């Protein structure tokens, strides 16, 4: 399969992108690493009139390191994070997870912003970034707005990106020294999309305890105040505080009725927690 004929633009500023995507007389798709959009174009699942390539914009390809958080440009690649070209403020969480995304060839081109906007429920970034409490910054004609990562995915393959908006950066909080995290995904084979993901982060000094169950039918299930299922993070062995039954009930409420699905997702979260280093 070959894509339909389309126009192509590679602007060097976000303002130019916003102007190009404001044209609602034609179908416009933004392209970052093209690791999902490329195949979709070839399969003609997407038939745009114009492709706006975001990778020529310097602002989207760098990061800025603040006291409490780091801002990562939307077009930073998985490999940039894996290889620590981006400062890690997550005590290894992001680089470790980046290292397990698909294959190296995909990581070399695929981007954090592209993955979040593509909104595949099995993608790693949605789960781990929701676990560490990250947010995305969206810029449009009316200025910027900030949305939590878990709210950014509206549903499978649907992001909360309003007409005329572009995701510009991902803001990741700096974890304290007390923080612990874990990530477990169940895949049929290396590099494939997961069929169950468990992720968590506890940061007792900041009073945060978050758990995420990903690779569901739709958006990840985020337990933002997870003290009652995984504890507050102060226990020497976090798995002692794990309440699988409570997690199962949360998944049922979120619409996961199949018992085997529930079993694998609960197990993924439990194994993520078992991975955490003891204190």
């Amino acid at each position, binding site marked *: 399969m070959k894509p339909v004929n389309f126009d192509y633009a590679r602007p060097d500023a976000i303002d130019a992108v916003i102007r190009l995507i404001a044209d609602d007389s034609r179908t416009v798709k933004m392209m970052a690493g093209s690791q999902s959009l490329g195949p979709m174009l070839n399969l003609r699942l997407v038939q745009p009139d114009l492709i706006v390539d975001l990778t020529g914009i310097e602002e989207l390809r760098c990061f800025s390191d603040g006291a409490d958080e780091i801002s990562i440009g939307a077009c930073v690649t998985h490999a940039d994070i894996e290889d620590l070209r981006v400062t890690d403020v997550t005590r290894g969480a992001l680089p470790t997870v980046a290292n397990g995304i698909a294959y190296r060839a995909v990581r070399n081109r695929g981007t954090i912003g592209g993955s979040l906007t593509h909104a595949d429920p099995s993608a790693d970034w949605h789960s781990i970034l929701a676990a560490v409490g990250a947010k995305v910054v969206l810029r449009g004609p009316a200025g910027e707005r900030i949305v939590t990562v878990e709210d950014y995915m509206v549903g499978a393959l649907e992001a909360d990106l309003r007409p005329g908006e572009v995701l510009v950066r991902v803001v990741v909080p700096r974890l304290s020294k007390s923080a612990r995290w874990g990530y477990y995904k169940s895949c049929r084979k290396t590099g494939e999309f997961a069929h169950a993901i468990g992720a968590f982060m506890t940061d007792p000094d900041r009073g945060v305890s978050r758990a995420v169950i990903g690779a569901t039918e739709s958006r990840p299930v985020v337990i933002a105040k997870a003290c009652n299922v995984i504890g507050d993070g102060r226990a020497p062995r976090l798995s002692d505080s794990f309440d699988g039954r409570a997690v199962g009930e949360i998944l049922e409420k979120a619409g996961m009725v199949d018992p*085997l699905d529930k079993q694998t997702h609960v197990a993924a979260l439990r194994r993520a927690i078992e991975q955490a280093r003891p204190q």
Partner: protein
Amino acid sequence: MGKQGVGVSIARKEDDRFLRGRGEYVGDIRLPGMRDVAFVRSPLAHARIKDIRIPSHLRSSVFIASDIAADTRPIRAVSGLPGFKPSDQPILAFEKVRQVGELIAMCVADTRAEAEDIAAAVEIDFEELPAVHDMLLARRPDSALVHEEWGDNVFLETFVDINMEAAYDAPIKITREISTARQSMAPMEGRGTVAVWHKRMDQLVLYTGNQQPHIVRNGLSECLKLEQLNIRIVSPDVGGGFGYKGIVLTEDVCLGWLAMRCGYPVRWIEDRREHLTAGANCREHHYNITVYADRDGKLRGVECEASVDSGAYSSYPFSACLEAAQIASILPGPYDFPSYRCRTWSVSTNKCPILPYRGVARTGVCYAIELMMDAIAHECGLEPYEVRLKNLVRPEQMPFDNITKKHFDSGNYPESLRQALAKIDLPGLRARQKKGEPDGRLIGVGLSVYCEQGAHGTSVYAGWGIPMVPGHEQATARMTPDGGLELRIGAHSHGQSMETTLPQVAHEILGIDIARIKLVHGDTEYTPYSTGSWGSRCAVMSGGAVATASRELAKLIKGIGAHLLQTEVENVKLENGAVVGPSNSVKIDEIAHTWYRRPQDLPATVDPRGLEVTIGYKPARDSGTFSYATHIAVVAVDPELGDIELIDYVVVEDGGQLINPMVVDGQIYGGLAQGIGTAMYEEMNFDSSGQPLASTFADYLLPGPTEVPAPKLGHMETLAPYTEFGVKGIGEGGAIAPPGAIGNAVNDALRPLGAQVLHTPMTPRRVLEAIRTAAERREEKAPKVAEGLPA
């Protein structure tokens, strides 16, 4: 020049270009003025075509059935087996479509993208019909019909009964329902064709990645109503075949037709979506099988009903019934037992026509019978290997005609099992199972033994009566004036390493450096007729033909050499690339130079055949070689997630004399990867409307490097009694045994939970469902125990 002959592991000659990315595949061919074809394919599995609308400005770029009807015939591959119902596969569908992906219109443009644009503009009105999507439902009287004129959906039913009822008093009787999923063979290179009409030669030249160029010429000649003199088929480098490229394609007929009329070269390169949605073509078997045995594990009889989903049409040349009918003849596997009954159905459904995939029916058959052997072992309280040792054909019985009259030529099957067992620590693994794993996983060990009939010839295929019956395999051996040697064969290498191994055979006889021996193949213009590369036949048949031609050539070389040495031919021998007489010698180079360039130095009585031989070869018996192997898998099953990890894998095989042991190892590795695919990953599901549910490799999973363990390999070399050098065909075996070995290992691991998986692939979901079903069964039984009833 080091050792280069038969039995030497020399590096492959073809790898120089392959490893540098310099292979030349159909997709690499660029001809001046070449245009691209895209097809309009049926989006529905079963429907009547009510109307095809082509925008008028595109009419000259689109061709439909009515355009080609007068010049073409449908593809018709009939089997001579009694009761076989033929199907005509239209080149372009009219009236009715019978599978998703069936060709309806051919669109041509300067680029593939533009051709796809045109294809998207063609509108078709369908009247959808109920899809025949399940081969078991398809046999019910109320099923919709794929071919209405048949009255049912069965290409062929076969039945064999050999003294079955004598086994009915056996104390052990075990019945299972076992099945294997439909797969899509997945060579790295898909199909592809370039066609051009060559005016000077008055010839259609069709470049198509194919295992059987001469068979494609037969088929195209029939379908295009063209003399074979006017057709040349070229199969360049082929990036994997496995059976996927052992077929005459409707696409090839279309492109041939177009090239004959349009005045420019045309090209069609299959994309992965076409491959997966229109080409899921193999492995779908279903067995209701019962085994009868004595308490000591001795197999008394096997009774089976087997169905194969053969798809919508009978493909050319192997036909729709080869797979199922083969089940009946090979289900007994490597075992000796006295009673057998098997009924098979080749069922027509609204799916792609079935093709023989590496191992053909053997992979499914081996899975079924090997699961049953383990069931007997469990029932008798024996180790699985003990049951096999009781039932395997014994070396002192060789050659052995089994219950279905298969002639096992040679071998020591129990020894392959013993050698394989020696490569694992079975008592250690049993102790480890008892102790349990710290991570909660369950360890299992599984065995699988099979035999593989290869290079079976005329007598076997005449019985099938399909459009292709192999006879003598021919080879040409021809010296060049400077002393090089050309070998020409009609079979084709799509990974078999024949550019290396056949020169090794010629070297063994002629002593010419293999660097100066070139294999010419893949072109009907330059090579003798052959049914091509399939059925693990090339090492035996093309190898035998090359050996025979080389021996004849040796006589001619010695004749000229004797003239030059001024002695009688009885006094000379061929040694190290030279003819050696009583007192002096002459190099083959010089002999070639004399024949071609200095004929004045030769006497009038010289043999006029010169230095070129074409000759045919058949083994002393054409019932096939029987290679065999034992596979052992050791797995760890995660009972919570259903994941299976292969923690050890053993293969001990007997391929007779190995021409190049390294190449054989490569065949086993590749086959094993595909067998693991069958066992654990590959599955094309269809919904009830006959829609295939995977269209990319994100949905159709193949094992990758991290999923395929490095096996422990062992070789035995029991020479085949009927072939040159004692060679046996081994090309398919690696893909035959893994589902049986892994299946038995998984069930061994799950035994403490009372669970078993009887369907490939063994996905995490199927493993978890098996565990859950077993748990529910235990819960149902539990209250009865409480009431004092037997559990």
